[in-house]
């Protein structure tokens, strides 16, 4: 083989290698490409609320990422917001794990929302170290559809949040993290941050941060009609 041919072949090989590297780089979830926008459009998991889907970049909860829900008060419908997505995941035979829920998840309510109870796992690890370990293991295991966690008394370090985000990406798992609203001002690696509050009979959502999409929008979601109906009972 002549040296010229050799040279040409070498050049082709290096070109291929470069292309491969570029493809690998572009395949990363955190690189945004205008040309790929339509691909990315629909990889979220439907929230069950069309108004919310329209606001979110992936037309649903971002897959393989942390979603932070900033809530101060329980009882405004924060869990009901997630239930349609969780029900869909359990129907697809994926596990849903609750880590340190503040109260008992009430089986009849979850079952009537369509959640398959045998796919639900509740963890109560002792101490923050075990909690973080269990969350990371669960997120990166790849067999868990969604993990819901509630922030304990001391806020987790930024490094830990980042680790959880990476673990969620590795395991393609939805991670919902409930935190108090006082954390709204502190930076966070989460790809979606939502502020939840109550407004009359409605749940008021505010997008604080969204990777690959706009933020700052507000949305009101009505609560289930059979809850807010007024009979005006006397006692």
């Amino acid at each position: 083989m002549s040296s010229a041919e050799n040279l040409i072949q070498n050049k082709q090989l290096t070109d291929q290698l470069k292309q491969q590297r570029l493809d690998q780089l572009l395949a990363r979830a955190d690189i945004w490409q205008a040309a790929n926008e339509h691909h990315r459009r629909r990889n979220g998991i439907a929230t069950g609320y069309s108004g919310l889907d329209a606001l979110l970049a992936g037309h649903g909860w971002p897959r393989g990422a942390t979603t932070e829900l900033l809530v101060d008060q329980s009882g405004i419908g924060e869990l009901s917001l997630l239930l349609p997505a969780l029900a869909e995941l359990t129907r697809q035979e994926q596990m849903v794990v609750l880590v340190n829920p503040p109260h008992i998840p009430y089986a009849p309510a979850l079952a009537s929302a369509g959640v398959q109870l045998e796919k639900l796992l509740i963890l109560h690890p002792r101490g923050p170290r075990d909690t973080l370990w269990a969350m990371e293991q669960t997120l990166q295991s790849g067999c868990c559809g969604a993990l819901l966690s509630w922030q304990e008394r001391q806020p987790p370090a930024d490094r830990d949040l980042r680790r959880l985000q990476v673990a969620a990406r590795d395991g393609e798992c939805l991670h919902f993290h409930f935190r108090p609203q006082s954390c709204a001002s502190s930076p966070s690696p989460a790809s979606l941050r939502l502020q939840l509050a109550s407004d009359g009979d409605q749940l008021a959502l505010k997008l604080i941060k969204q990777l690959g999409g706009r933020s700052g929008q507000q949305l009101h979601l009505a609560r289930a009609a059979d809850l807010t109906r007024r009979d005006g009972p006397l006692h």
Partner: protein
Amino acid sequence: MLWLCIQFPNLPLEALTRAQQAGPDGSPRAVVEKEQVVDVNSSARERAVTCGLTIATACALCADLELLPRDTERESQLLQELAQWGYSFTPVVSPRAASPHSDDGSFACLYLELSGCLKANGGLEPLLQQLRSELQQMHISAFMGLGHSPSAAHMLSQLEEHRQWLAGAKAPPSPQQWRQWISFAPGKLLDCDHKTIAKLYACGIKRVSQLLAIPLSEVGTRFGRDFVNYLARLNGTRHDPVPSYQPPPEFHSELFFPSPLDNSEQLLFPAGRLVRELCQQLQRRQLYSQQLRWKLDFGQQGCKVLSVEISRPQLDPQRLIALTKLQLERLTLEQPVQAIGLTCDRLQPLGQDSVDDDLFGEASRVQRSHQLIDKLKARLGHQSLSGVTLKESHLPEQAWQSADNLVLNSRKRGHQLQPVNAPRPNWLLPRPDRIQCRNQRLFYRGELRLLQGPERIDGYWWQHRRHARDYYIARGDEGALYWVFQDLTSEAWYLHGVYA
């Protein structure tokens, strides 16, 4: 019939020191019994310490000799374990303990009948190789002999020429060759007491061939009936029965540390060896275990038992070691550990489709979730994991129960409970929380206003404790929805759930 005899010359020493990591044998060691050296390791042998010396002589030869008292119980247990190991190759196994008189020079040995398992193991040569390499892995030194009867195998295992042939043996030898070896063997290799051998030598009989040349009746009058029987068994003219070994349906193995360990990390190495032994046996016997029970022996200070739960049949040693590691990491040792044991009882037969070695990864998600749950259980403890299920009851707090074992494979049962068709809160309080009631107004973090109700739930009126309640949905000041009830007997108000 093709009998293999495996003799274990260093069993007294190995029963005590097997647990230690393989490496250059530093310190000279000897096992002693009744003021006599019974067994020595290689570095002690280099210093001219041999079996049969008194302790005083041995210590004079080698000042830094470490003396370990002989533990015959541990030895016989190790022999049982070896029999169990042998049973994984062939169903006809017979262990024989060393004779109590240590000066006899007879070692503990194991008889294996090989003619039935040659085909399954790919012939004689691969089988012998496998046996040798596994013995080496277990750190057990041994030598072997092949014979047409157990007695012949025992004798030939001591014959140097036969052992050399066996090292490269490809197929079982012909009957003539056996006869040749036996008749060539020196008389001192006969399996009988010293007195008889001395008598033989006094008669000028040095080789077995000379003995066989004498008519049997003559031999009988001089050496007795038993000796003639023994010769017949050696020849193969008489049956040679040995007690057959029946394995218990459980696994037990123990490693003893001559110098106690005080760090839980150091335990990982011996634990890994035990797990590998377990997996080999389970694989061969097509069994699985749902629980590994580890016993850490602190000697005088008692012992500690750890158990590792395994949700699915699992024969991969690496995963079992990883689960054990999670448990050992949590452990802080207060006392040094002298021995570690692994017990698995309730071994169950492996089903057709139950092993997690799915070649095409079809059920990989279910598999991974089993592995995840095992891991979580091992580190967090059994009680930290739970599930929820429905239960049939009128009372809201009894309409659910926590489920211990998660049903990960969705297998629909015949009877499915249906949840009640009324709005129920997502969170239930473990105990109803008292609400303040002043002037017909309810206060719980601000004033509560009732939206709907009442829904009367009246249960257990036929029993001593009646539960009569009127449930309402109420709204707090900040828009949160609560599930509250009024107890009809005491007229007090309680918060029972939150519509999260």
